[in-house]
């Protein structure tokens, strides 16, 4: 199971604005980040705070030194967020644009309903990664849990490790690229031919995640919708 783990970063660049949650409230930190239109910020002592760096709208850089709770980077627009630690449920949920990079592992529903931008998870991701995905790109360097990409509508998911049960159940138009084993495919999800357009797309995603030079796209299998359940037919009841 390939997994790239980074140590927790503790030192930060003196040019950054420091936001220490040992003394600042969540509201104070988020308000500062939400109002910022430029600049770089380092958040220390997050102590598993929920909804940290949620609702950002400016093209700012945010580095969070430590583990975060639920919904870190939720609904992100334009900001680039690095989590030097693990992330709880729903990291980068409904992200619209920008980039969220989790250096550790991510809990369930990472990138749920995401519409745009890039989510990179260096470690593993739990169940329901990319559930109801709507355009976000996700690259997971480790493995992912069950029910990933459930009802995923658009966007791309790249997994360097293995995938759990029911991958892509009831998937719509999202594309999945898995290098390792898939425990099982969900309803209406099938392996598909990797054409040159898909290899090009995958190279671009890996490059965006900063690992294009070290990964061979030929090692991946593409998965997507068989599109047999797009219309409700009584003959398909056995599939549900």
């Amino acid at each position, binding site marked *: 199971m390939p997994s790239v783990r980074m140590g927790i970063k503790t030192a930060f660049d003196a040019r950054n604005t420091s936001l220490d949650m040992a003394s600042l409230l969540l509201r104070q930190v988020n308000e500062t980040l939400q109002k910022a239109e430029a600049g770089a910020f380092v958040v220390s002592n997050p102590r598993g705070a929920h*909804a940290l760096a*949620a609702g950002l709208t400016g093209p700012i850089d945010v580095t969070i030194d430590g583990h975060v709770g639920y*919904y870190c980077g939720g609904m992100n627009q334009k900001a680039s967020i690095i989590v030097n630690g693990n992330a709880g*449920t729903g990291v980068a949920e409904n992200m619209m644009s920008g980039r969220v990079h989790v250096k550790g592992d991510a809990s*369930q529903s990472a990138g749920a309903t995401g519409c745009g931008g890039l989510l990179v998870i260096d470690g593993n991701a739990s169940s329901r990664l990319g559930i109801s995905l709507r355009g976000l790109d996700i690259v997971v360097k480790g493995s992912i849990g069950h029910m990933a990409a459930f009802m995923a509508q658009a966007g791309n998911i790249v997994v360097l490790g293995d995938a759990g049960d029911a991958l892509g159940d009831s998937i719509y*138009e999202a594309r999945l690229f898995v290098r390792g084993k898939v425990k099982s495919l969900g309803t209406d999800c099938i392996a598909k031919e990797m054409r040159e357009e898909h290899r090009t797309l995958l190279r671009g995603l890996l490059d965006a995640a900063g690992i294009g030079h070290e990964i061979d796209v030929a090692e991946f299998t593409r998965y997507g919708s068989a599109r047999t359940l*797009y*219309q*409700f037919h*009584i003959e398909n009841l056995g599939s549900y």
Partner: protein
Amino acid sequence: MADDHDRWIHTPPRESATFDRATIAEIHRAAATGIYDIRGFGAKRKLPHFDDLLFLGASISRYPLEGYREKCGTNVVLGTRFAKNPIEIKIPITIAGMSFGSLSAPAKEALGRGASAVGTSTTTGDGGMTAEERAASSLLVYQYLPSRYGMEPDQIRKADAIEIVIGQGAKPGGGGMLLGQKISDRVAKMRTLPAGIDQRSACRHPDWTGPDDLEIKILELREITGWEKPIYVKVGAARPYYDTALAVKSGADVVVLDGMQGGTAATQDVFIEHCGLPTLAAIRPAVKALTELDMHRKVQLVVSGGIRSGADVAKALALGADAVSIGTAALIALGDNHPRWEEDYRKLGTTAGCYDDWHEGRDPAGITTQDPELTKRLDPVAAGKRLANYLSVLTLECQTIARANGKSHVHNLEPEDLVALTVEAAAMAGVPLAGTSWIPGRSLQD
């Protein structure tokens, strides 16, 4: 003589109460198609409802207020618990969430126009916010739904309040299906899906489970909106005592409680008719939970499901609601099921007053459709005016009853103003059976 004898020996046809003609027709339909019946509207069976309650009015011990002269307030403030910017509606009636997709764009605009004209709010639905409804709605509540179709943070920021939808009364525990014939290019684009395919709306939220998670989800929404907007939690009437308590525990500003008479764009008939609680049975347990938590009137309770008249509004408020919400009645006010379209209803195999195939996209009234020609039939200005008129009538009727019971504000109506006509209604509403002091389930000493 023989003929006369025949008249005595023949038993006239007798319809079975168990296998009545509607039941037999449904069995025939099911046997022919192999699939359950799907339809819109709400429960059609007879249920204990507000019709089973009566107001007592004034008497020697209760002093009435003069109609048309003495003031009877109707305003409601929603979101006073945590939101920096609570919203105030001028009448105790709001418009329930209904999606663009299930409804046409002119219908959504008309709902906004009608609600705004009388100073109340309307609500988005699955698929997100349209520019037309935002422009037409002075107060717009943004629904945060399990499917998250069309959900964008910029839309949340444009809204005046947020309603997290856990379920709805017509199908507590059920998701939805918007059939392909209603998925126009615009609807498809808003929902990030191909045009023409059936779109499944999820029954559970994708990124949280249970009340502890809900508390964190509410925190996230508050953080994203700067703690400015009221956050509602909408539940279908299933376990109203516990659901209300858990919504309060999770940090809701407002609880929206939708009884089983509440309408839906489409679901299985068996779901509509056999799941959930009647609205009448749901209100008192919810109020009990709020009262025990010292949150009655602090967390506002909005009740929906089968509200038709000002009497229904007044009865819901008397049982403890802060406001009511209407969906089906609002669509009827716009023109749904109007006899002017009888010829078209007949072509669809139904008749005005019975049309409920809202999911098929062939609504002659131009309301539950995306067909370009049919949607032209609904003038959003005229339909909005009809809705405003209807909302005014509901408010006037509610005030009439409140004044007759001596109330200077509709919120002063109370259970003690009510009696029940049936034992069932008395038990559900917690008011005495008319002419007695008996409330089933309570001893006379209570």
